[in-house]
């Protein structure tokens, strides 16, 4: 039987965690209690509330989690607003996985890895970071720089503080945009912090966050001597089908849903500036 790509599966929300004032993480399994499908870090899925709409989200959980999938979703539009109102036990639909993953089994292997995220941009990176932690010996040193508007906007801070910060050969640097009571960590924007840290330019870097952060952080990395061919990011454009047919996420001769969302900076250089 041909695989139906546009017909979703039913997912059950088994846990909802409020990460920040506008980000919640939803744990989802199939109606049989099992994980809906396998994926690789960086891949996405179409999540929908029938009657409201369907949207593409990155799968936040690591593929090494055999029990469930997680989606960290920021409330910012008409579908995410309804998703945020869901309660545990709610049924939604999920289809996927879609897109190209981070080259965790190819280019990343044996490399020192630098992850830079801003705000909800941590969502797709959490999948890679936890994958790398699971297969720790396959990778070198890991450095994570993560920033948000305030300490309350840092997504998944508990896992970061209790697990990531205690992982051997893994450094975590957090920053918030403005000083705040109860925060004794770094204050300042991600691009500036990255430059201050004087990072080793031989690392393979992965960036994810708002376009303005990506732009200035990339410039900073290039100044530090990073090579564009070893810097990766993910793009986000409107999607309907997820399989390169509906035409929406077309940029140049690429479809973000199918040829991305993960792109090397050198690949982005070849694309017209329209994303």
């Amino acid at each position, binding site marked *: 039987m*041909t*695989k*139906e*790509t*546009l*017909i*979703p599966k*039913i997912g059950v929300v088994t846990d909802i965690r409020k990460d920040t004032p506008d980000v919640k993480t939803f744990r989802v399994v199939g109606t049989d209690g099992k994980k809906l499908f396998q994926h690789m870090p960086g891949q996405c899925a179409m999540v*929908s509330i*029938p*009657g*409201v*709409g*369907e949207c593409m989200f990155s799968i936040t959980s690591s593929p090494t989690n055999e029990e469930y999938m997680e989606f960290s979703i920021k409330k*910012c*539009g*008409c579908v*995410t607003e309804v998703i945020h109102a869901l309660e545990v*036990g*709610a*049924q*939604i*639909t999920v289809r996927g996985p879609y897109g190209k993953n981070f080259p965790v089994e190819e280019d990343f292997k044996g490399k020192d890895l630098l992850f830079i995220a801003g705000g909800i941009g941590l969502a797709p990176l959490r999948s890679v970071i936890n994958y790398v932690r699971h297969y720790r010996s396959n990778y070198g040193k890991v450095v994570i720089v993560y920033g948000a508007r305030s300490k309350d906007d840092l997504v998944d801070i508990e896992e970061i503080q209790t697990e990531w910060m205690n992982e051997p050969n893994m450094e975590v640097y957090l920053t918030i945009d403005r000083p705040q009571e109860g925060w004794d960590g770094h204050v300042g924007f991600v691009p500036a912090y990255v430059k201050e840290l004087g990072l080793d330019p031989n690392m393979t870097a992965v960036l994810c966050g708002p376009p303005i952060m990506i732009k200035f952080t990339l410039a900073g990395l290039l100044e530090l001597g990073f090579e564009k061919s070893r810097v990766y990011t993910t793009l*986000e*454009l*409107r999607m*309907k*089908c997820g*399989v*390169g*047919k*509906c*035409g*929406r996420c*077309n*940029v*140049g*001769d690429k479809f973000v849903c199918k040829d991305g969302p993960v792109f090397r900076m050198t690949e982005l250089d*070849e694309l*017209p500036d*329209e*994303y």
Partner: protein
Amino acid sequence: MFKIAKERLNELYAKINGQMGLFIPVKKAGEVNYEVWREGKEVSLETLKTVKSPKNMFFPQTENMMKFKTEGKNLEIIDVRGEKRPFVLFGVKACDYKAIEVLDKVFLADPVDTYYQSRRNATTIVTLACSKPEESCFCSVFGIDATAPQGDVTTWLDGENLYWQANTEKGETLTALVKDLFAEGGEAEVEAQQTATKTIIDSLPFANLDLSKFKPENLNELFNAAEWQEMSEACLGCGTCTFVCPTCQCFDIRDFKTNEGVIRYRCWDSCMYSDFTLMAHGNSRTTQMQRFRQRFMHKLVYYPSQNDGLYSCVGCGRCVNKCPQRLNIVKVIKTLGGKDND
């Protein structure tokens, strides 16, 4: 090759219709479009261009995809498709046939779009050679021979007869069903018509458009061309070009609440619309110039770059005839296609 006298064509339609569905150009309220054939409808094979292309036979303008039923917290997904009855698509011109090849490369590429595929598999396509191409036609620019379209069956029509030649197994099967209406012969008449038509095609005003600049390696240069601004200035963003275009395939997927649950359907969409790329956090194409550019870059550069040089324009000329602002792909080709357009 077989032939059947023009005045007996109704018998042919009736015979096909007795076995399977028949879609054919029918004149209604002054416009010709593909419709289900019924006795008494005014078939118009002579009309060169149907208003809408036959793409909606495989990719309907709106199509229900699935239904969701909710009982308490439980959600159920119901596939609403039934078996597709075999049907014949009759009278497809060479340009529109080529357009189906363009659509196939999108919808039948892995992962296959099963909604499209089931209709496609159920269809036998009978093409009809052109004998009176119009000034807005430029299929020859894309290497299409309007006098010898492919398809499961190719037909030619002159003042006397319809000539019939099966090309594929599906075509042979259809031929066997209707063969007792046919007489043999017609090669000489077809050849004479082809020669005459080719003379017209060679003299058409857009017969010699230069496409040589539209190459993947020129993608960014073409994208950044200053001319897009002026070319697109009059564009209203009405989307007419995308709706009449036989190769435009962008679609939307939406949900519709009914008393019996939620219907998820898809419908044609247009890259010419401002909300096509609108997201909660922004829009990647905010101006009509960007949307206009996207449509033509996709047809002439992006699509060919993804599909071994095959253009996603077939020169049918519908957009030339239908744009309320007289903008069209010919003007874009003339402006950016290459130096021989001067």
